[in-house]
Structures are given as structure tokens and as C-alpha cells.
């Protein structure tokens, strides 16, 4: 096999091949799928946050015309066991539909199956449920103490405790031995003993609602007689869905086909496999008919996993010259009522990010995950990394303010230096590569940092409330294990490639066809990328954690390289008599396979492809020879990076707060992102823009707010503020390029970057703006009233 070559189209702004269907309304999303005889499901959900189910009266619902069946959680549990999760820690049983106790408002208690979506909703509303209410746990500090209730009294947690709301306890950092489970605090204690200055702050990274614009949906179709199940699901990882369906339904992986059609955004919340999905599969199998369920937005607010929600008690020990000696943090993650697929894992990623881009010699973190009577949390764009970076970057900013240092210079002083990579942080991650000073310098230059400072000071002199903020981020990409790809060159010279990554807006069809186009020297429009179908894609781990280019792209290129090598052998055989060509001397250029340096000696791509499928028998019949190894041009590859990649970047923002109202406007946002080699800048910029908007949304607008009864007060777009076009400035983007040693192209991943950097950047800018009023920290979201109170001199 020849070594992978860098495709020549890398770095070109290629517009997306996905778009023609999507801009004409021709994409097929789950709700667009209609099958003969298809039934519709609707769920009756708990309107209280914690209580025992006393009785469920389904008689009125069952009497309705068009209602096929009504099943309570207890009835479902007779043929559908508790849902699987992918984390290795002790977890409570969690049924798709509550069997005897509800633990969050919105938890399903019964399902209706009917001939029509409207009838199903009518019937679900007609179900009467009587609850015996239990005390509601909403405050994570109180949850930690088991107050006022314990959600899962029968669970024995990782600490061996029963009767506790602690789902997980994970220490990390310097002196923690994960094998022995021991913690040596001498280094961190010494850091704080030697500190000349200590920053100490409680910070909350609030709960968010992911809100992909397409709510979730599923169509499950069990075919009796064939004994196969086909499931269309709005998911980020169809193979994981298939595997979990098989596990819970007792079916073989050859019997279940999961298709992710067009998926209208995921942002991590469509990694999880949900109760509604399992119920649809089980009900379809029971009835022998296809079943559809489409989530309403109002349902999505309570029924789709939330993100973030973690409190940090952060301390930083430093010297007066700005040298950071140590960082200590206690984290409490409010994970809601149950553990979903990766719920317990996400906050542990926060533990791993606590070194940020800094060379911090001693770190101690202790993470508690606690159950509360809220919607369960799971991955949300960034998944653990934004939380960690937020805490560190807020802490660094507080330290700069305390020391009177420029925030850029304090950062520069503590950066991990370029010659120290690969660098093992005290938080336990090995960073692959980085050049943080280069990104800082470019950000300072592009933003005109010194000029902005003068602008801010001049504005302040006029009585305006203006602030400047900076943040630096690093993130982990390429996690999530191996990825699979296959490449087939057909007899007509066209190419089909499959990928186990499963896009929902990331443009894989464009990016991956670009890679193959460069690799094979044929136009991209002769290449089809197949994804999101477990019957057509042999294996995969989905699109999540910014892994698709790193893992999926490399797998595709490796499979391509194998096929290319075989194709070169066919070409060499064809050319052999006239040129004594050797396979490794052939180049694939402009639709030809030819001798490097002597382009006249070669064959067209199509000629070679056709010959490859001729087969030895036909060749012999035509009086021709045929190379060893037989017919065909198809191969596959599994690929797993040797280590995670660590993209990074620097963001700078200027904000202005309306003195009268507290409304904050982002006046400027400069983002420098370094994701290694950029394949398609258009797509990368789109990823950064979207991430910036989500990060700014968290800083300024978004928040899942619960009342003391566990009711979600921000349960619709009427109260949960999503960023709109008018809430955002025009972003100013640029990049540095520090390649990863772990990927052949030097790519690192970009999907989550913008989300991670922008949130602390905006909060740092807001704190700067309000620093004349004595503020050193603000918790998000930065609602106008909060800022107004500070300007008024009142309490926060």
C-alpha cells in the first residue's frame, strides 16, 4: 500500500453537494416518511416532578375511535426491560415509560397508539393519572445531602453508598492514581501553601436545552415473517441505535436496520437513544405494523436530554508575577433524574479540561454527579469541555484582574510552550500539538487589542458601559473510538464510499467526496457518499465529539488508498507491455492513471475500472491475461487515532451594556481557531459561526430554569430565548494551523470549537464592562436585569 497523499483540493471553498435538495424542500427527514398502515404514537407525560403513580385510567382513551392500544409503563415493562447505557458506573434502572414512580416533569407514564396523529394526542390527553407526590429535589447542593428526598433509594453508588443522590464521584488531577483509587494531595496543598495570591469563586455553568431545530422522531417497522426491524430515526449514530435496539429487544444485529435520513441538527442530544425509540420498536413488533412518533417542541423541552448544569467551586493559586501554581476545584454536576447513554461520562470530560491551555503544575478536582428531579442531562455541543474551559478561563480572567495584568499577557506567561508537545496535563490529558502564542498574537492583531482598550477607555470616559473580553480554549476531538469506511470504484468508473459517521448538517458528503476526488483524480460529482444506514454502512460510531473529519475522513482515505493501490495494479498490468509500468510509479490525475513524468503512458480511469470488473474468465476468453488477486475494486478500513487531537483558539469580544436597561450588545467578536489542516474553509467557518452563536446564546440568553416544584419555567421558545440573527454581531474569523501528528492530513476537528471559546469570552467582556461597579464575576445567562442591578449598585 502506498502512503496517503494530500489531496489537492484541500483548502478549497467548495460549496456543498447536500444543498440542492435541501434548498428546494426535497430532503427527507423522519417526519416525511409515510408507510402503509402506519400508526402514530403519543405519550402521556407526568405533570409533576416526583411522585408515585397511584393509578392510571386509560378507559376513555381506549374508547376513542382510531385508538389501537394504550399501554402504561407497567404494561410495557412486561416486554421491554430497562434501557441500556454506555457508561460503566452503577446506575438506577430506567424504563422507557415510568412503571411506578415519576422523577421529572415530562417523564412518560403511558403511550397511545392510534391511526392518526391528532387522535393519538386527543387520547393521550384523555388518560387520567393519579399521583402520590414526593418531595422534589431541585437544588444540587441539597441533592448532595439527600435533601429533601433521595430519587433512587435502592441504588448502590460507586462509593458503595445507598440512599444517596450521588450518582458518581470522580477525583482527578495531580497525585490521583486511577488504578489504586488513591489521592495524594501533597502537590496541590504545597501549591496553595506557596501562593502569593489565591482566586476563589463559585461559578455555575447553567442548564441548557439543546433545541436542534428538528425535534426528535422515529418510525419503526417490524415486518412479521421476515422478522426484521427497520427504524428511521433522527439520530447522530445509527449503529449505536441499532446495537441498543438489538440489546433491549433481543434481536440480532443482522435483523435490525437503522436509517438516519436527513437529520435536522443534533448538538449532542441525538446521540442518546431514547425511551420513545425503544417503545416504537417494541410496539411495532407487537402489532406487526409500522409506528411513528414525532416529538413536539413542547415535549422536546422536557423529553430530550438537557446539557451542561455544573457548579464549580474554583480556586487558583498563583504568584504575584502571574505564574499559576495550582488549581483546585470541586464540581457538582446536576444530571437530572436518570442516567442516559452518556450522562455520567460528560462531566468527567470537564475534569480532564481543567488545565486549559496552561502549564499548571498541580491540579486537584473532585466531581460529584447528583440526581435531581429534572430532565436528564447528556451531551450538548462541547459536552464537558465548554464547562471546564469556562471555569478555567473565568478563573484566569479573575486572576488577571486581581493582579492588574493584561489578560493576554497573563495567559501568555502560563501557556504550555510549543516545544513541550506532546504535553501531559495534570488534569490527565495528553495534548497532541499546539502553538498558543501564535493564536494569541493573531487574535491581538486582528482585534487591534490595544486599540480596543483605548476605545473602551474612551467610551467609559463618556459614561458608557463597555468591556473587553478574551478567552482561550482547547478541546478534545477524535474521541469515540474507531471509525469505519468503505470505498468501491464501480465498473463505470464512478465511486461509492460509505462512512460510519452520520452527519446532521456537517456536510460530510461534500468533504469526503472532496477527499476522494483529490485522491483518485476524478471529479467529485462522480462520487457518492453513503451514510446513515446500517444496512449499507457496515459499522460506525456516528457523528459526535467533533470526530468525523479526524476519524471518519481518515478511514475513508485509508479505504480509498487500498482501492487505489489495487487499481494501480490493474493499470500497471494493462500498461505493462508497453511501458513496464509499476503500480507505485502511477499517478491518478484528471481522470487518468498514468506514469508519473510520462503522462502519455496511461489509461483512463474508466478503462481501468472496466478492466478490473472484467474478471479472469472473460479476460481469458478475450485472449487477455489478468492480474493476480481477482476482479473488483472495493475495500474497507477501520481507523482509530493513536490519540485524541486538541484544537484550540483565542476569542476576543467587545460588549456594551445599556446603562438604563442592562441589555448587553456584542459589538465585536474576533475568533482565531486552529483545527489543524482545514479541508473545506466554507464548512469550517460555518461550524465556527454556529458554535459562536450557541456559545453566545449560553452567555446571554439561554437557560433551563426550574421552580422549586421541579417545573420547567422556560419550557417553550416563548420563554427560552434562542439566539436570533439580530442578537449577534458579524463574526471576524481567522485561523492558525498547527497540524496534529495523529492524523495523516493533520486535521483536528472543529464542530464544537466556537461553542467552547465564545461563552467565557463574552462573560469576561461583561465582567470587564461592569468592573467599574465592583463586579468580579457574573453567573450566566447575563440577563438584562442582572446587569442593571449591578449598574444600580444593588446586589447581584
Amino acid at each position, binding site marked *: 500500500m502506498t502512503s496517503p497523499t494530500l489531496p489537492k483540493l484541500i483548502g478549497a471553498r467548495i460549496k456543498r453537494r447536500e444543498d440542492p435538495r*435541501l434548498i428546494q424542500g426535497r430532503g427527507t427527514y423522519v417526519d416525511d416518511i409515510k408507510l402503509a398502515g402506519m400508526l402514530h404514537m403519543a405519550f402521556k407525560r407526568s405533570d409533576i416532578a416526583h411522585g408515585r403513580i397511584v393509578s392510571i385510567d386509560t378507559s376513555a382513551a381506549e374508547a376513542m375511535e382510531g385508538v389501537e392500544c394504550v399501554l402504561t409503563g407497567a404494561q410495557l415493562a412486561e416486554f421491554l426491560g430497562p434501557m441500556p447505557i454506555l457508561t460503566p458506573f452503577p446506575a438506577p434502572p430506567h424504563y422507557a415509560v415510568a412503571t411506578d414512580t415519576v422523577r421529572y416533569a415530562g417523564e412518560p407514564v403511558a403511550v397511545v397508539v392510534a391511526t392518526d396523529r391528532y387522535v393519538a394526542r386527543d387520547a393521550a390527553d384523555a388518560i387520567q393519572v393519579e399521583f402520590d407526590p414526593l418531595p422534589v429535589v431541585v437544588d444540587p447542593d441539597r441533592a448532595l445531602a439527600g435533601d429533601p428526598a433521595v430519587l433512587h433509594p435502592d441504588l448502590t453508588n460507586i462509593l458503595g453508598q445507598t440512599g444517596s443522590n450521588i450518582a458518581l464521584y470522580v477525583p482527578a488531577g495531580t497525585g490521583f492514581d486511577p488504578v489504586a483509587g488513591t489521592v495524594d494531595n501533597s502537590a496541590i496543598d504545597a501549591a496553595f501553601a506557596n501562593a502569593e495570591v489565591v482566586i476563589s469563586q463559585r461559578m455555575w455553568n447553567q442548564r441548557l436545552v439543546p433545541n436542534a*431545530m428538528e425535534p426528535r422522531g422515529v418510525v419503526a417497522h417490524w415486518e412479521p415473517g421476515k422478522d426484521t426491524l427497520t427504524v428511521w430515526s433522527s439520530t447522530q449514530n445509527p449503529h449505536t441505535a441499532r446495537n441498543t435496539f438489538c440489546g433491549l429487544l433481543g434481536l440480532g444485529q443482522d435483523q435490525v436496520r437503522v436509517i438516519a435520513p436527513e437529520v*435536522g*441538527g443534533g448538538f449532542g442530544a441525538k446521540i442518546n437513544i431514547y425511551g420513545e425509540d425503544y417503545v416504537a420498536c417494541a410496539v411495532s413488533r407487537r402489532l406487526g405494523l409500522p409506528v411513528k412518533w414525532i416529538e413536539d417542541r413542547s415535549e422536546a423541552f422536557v423529553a430530550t436530554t438537557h446539557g451542561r448544569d455544573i457548579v464549580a467551586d474554583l480556586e487558583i493559586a498563583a504568584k504575584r508575577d502571574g505564574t499559576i501554581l495550582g488549581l483546585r476545584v470541586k464540581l457538582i454536576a446536576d444530571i437530572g433524574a436518570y442516567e442516559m447513554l452518556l450522562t455520567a461520562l460528560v462531566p468527567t470530560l470537564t475534569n480532564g479540561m481543567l488545565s486549559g491551555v496552561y502549564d499548571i503544575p498541580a491540579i486537584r478536582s473532585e466531581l460529584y454527579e447528583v440526581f435531581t428531579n429534572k430532565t436528564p442531562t447528556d451531551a450538548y455541543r462541547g459536552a464537558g469541555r465548554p464547562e471546564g474551559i469556562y471555569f478555567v478561563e473565568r478563573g484566569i480572567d479573575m486572576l488577571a484582574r486581581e493582579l492588574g495584568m493584561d489578560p493576554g499577557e497573563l495567559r501568555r506567561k502560563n501557556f504550555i510552550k510549543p516545544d513541550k508537545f506532546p504535553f501531559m496535563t495534570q488534569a490527565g490529558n495528553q495534548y497532541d500539538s499546539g502553538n498558543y502564542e501564535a493564536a494569541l498574537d493573531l487574535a491581538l492583531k486582528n482585534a487591534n487589542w490595544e486599540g480596543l482598550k483605548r476605545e473602551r477607555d474612551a467610551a467609559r470616559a463618556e459614561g458608557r458601559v463597555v468591556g473587553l473580553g478574551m478567552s482561550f480554549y482547547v478541546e478534545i476531538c477524535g474521541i469515540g473510538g474507531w471509525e469505519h469506511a468503505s470505498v468501491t470504484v464501480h465498473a463505470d468508473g464512478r465511486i461509492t464510499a460509505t462512512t460510519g459517521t452520520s452527519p446532521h448538517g456537517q456536510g460530510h458528503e461534500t468533504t469526503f467526496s472532496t477527499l476522494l476526488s483529490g485522491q483518485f483524480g476524478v471529479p467529485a460529482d462522480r462520487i457518492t457518499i453513503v451514510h446513515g444506514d446500517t444496512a449499507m454502512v457496515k459499522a460506525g460510531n456516528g457523528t459526535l465529539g467533533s470526530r468525523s473529519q479526524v476519524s471518519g475522513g481518515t478511514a475513508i482515505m485509508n479505504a480509498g488508498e487500498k482501492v487505489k493501490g489495487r487499481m494501480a495494479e490493474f493499470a500497471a498490468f494493462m500498461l505493462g507491455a508497453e511501458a513496464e509500468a509499476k503500480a507505485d510509479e502511477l499517478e491518478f490525475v484528471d481522470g487518468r492513471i498514468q506514469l508519473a513524468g510520462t503522462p502519455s503512458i496511461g489509461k483512463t480511469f474508466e478503462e481501468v475500472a472496466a478492466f478490473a470488473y472484467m474478471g479472469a474468465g472473460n479476460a481469458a476468453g478475450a485472449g487477455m491475461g489478468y492480474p493476480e488477486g481477482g476482479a473488483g475494486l472495493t475495500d474497507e478500513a477501520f481507523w482509530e487515532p493513536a490519540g485524541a487531537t486538541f484544537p484550540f483558539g483565542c476569542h476576543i469580544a467587545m460588549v456594551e451594556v445599556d446603562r438604563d436597561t442592562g441589555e448587553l450588545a456584542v459589538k465585536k467578536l474576533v475568533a482565531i481557531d486552529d483545527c489543524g489542516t482545514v479541508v473545506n474553509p466554507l464548512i469550517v467557518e460555518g461550524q465556527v459561526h454556529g458554535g459562536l452563536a450557541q456559545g453566545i446564546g449560553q452567555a446571554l440568553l439561554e437557560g433551563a430554569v426550574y421552580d422549586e416544584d421541579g417545573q420547567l419555567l422556560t419550557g417553550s421558545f416563548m420563554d427560552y430565548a434562542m439566539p436570533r440573527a439580530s442578537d449577534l454581531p458579524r463574526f471576524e474569523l481567522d485561523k492558525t494551523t498547527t497540524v496534529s501528528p495523529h492524523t495523516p492530513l493533520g486535521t483536528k476537528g472543529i464542530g464544537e470549537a466556537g461553542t467552547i471559546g465564545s461563552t467565557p469570552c463574552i462573560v469576561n467582556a461583561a465582567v470587564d464592562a461592569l468592573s467599574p461597579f465592583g463586579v468580579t464575576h457574573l453567573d450566566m445567562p447575563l440577563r438584562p436585569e442582572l446587569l442593571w442591578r449591578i449598574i444600580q449598585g444593588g446586589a447581584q
Partner: protein
Amino acid sequence: MGQVTVTLNVNGRNRKVTVEPRTLLVHALREQLGLTGTHVGCDTSQCGACTVFVNGQSVKSCTLFAVQVEGDAITTIEGVAKDGELHPVQEGFWEEHGLQCGYCTPGMIMASIDLLNTNPQPTEAEIRDGLCGNLCRCTGYQHIVNAVQYAAEKVKA
């Protein structure tokens, strides 16, 4: 409750749908006429994914009953391209990478066309304000703004 027959002109063709009075226009379009390009993204009239034209004006088809638009002319995303030629706004969305997952896109395109119908040469601020009835979670809106600017330029030229 009984069913009623509603006559509409959809994308230039006269169509009949038989619906309940409570059938939302978006459901009639999607489920009876198979025009699934119009999407549902919320239930409180904020997201704009369901935007279609009724008699030439953008409306949220999730907040209208099909019976209300009897006899009206409806344009959905499927009717925007003419004779296989993309509308300048569609072209702008493609050229400028104005979409990612594509779910908000049909509504966003309809709202953008309406915006340019009312204000053919909008400023960036006017574009951002004019799209306040549509949510996009993927793009951060910048490429959408670029797409509308592209279309405005193209129409001017």
C-alpha cells in the same frame, strides 16, 4: 367533528384537501399534498420553519388552520424554483453556505424572499431584523445574511 373540503391554489395548481377544521395548514400541506419541504420546528409560532406564502406574504403555516386559507394562493418551498431554475435566494443559500442541517432552511428561504420583496436592498441590520421570525441553530446566521446579500446583489444586477 366533520371533515370539510378546502380548495387551494398551491404552487400554481388548484388542489383540494379534505380536513378537519382543526387541521393546521402545515399538516394539510405535508400530509395531504405531500409537500414535506415545509417543516414544523415549534408549537408557539417562534421558529418559522413552517413559513409559506399565502397570497404572496410570508406566514407561519403552523398557526393557521387549513380552512382559513380557502381559495388562497399558497407558495411552498417546492414552488420557489421556476422551470428548474433556482430562485436567487436559493442560489444565495447554496453559494454562501447558508444552511447546514437544512431543517430551518425552507422557512428561512421563504422569509428571506419576503424580506427582499419588501426591501430589495436591505442593510445587514435590516436583514438580521427582517429574519427575526426564523430560528436557525446551526449557522450562527452569518452565512444566511451573506446569502440574502448575494440574492439582493444578483437581483440588482
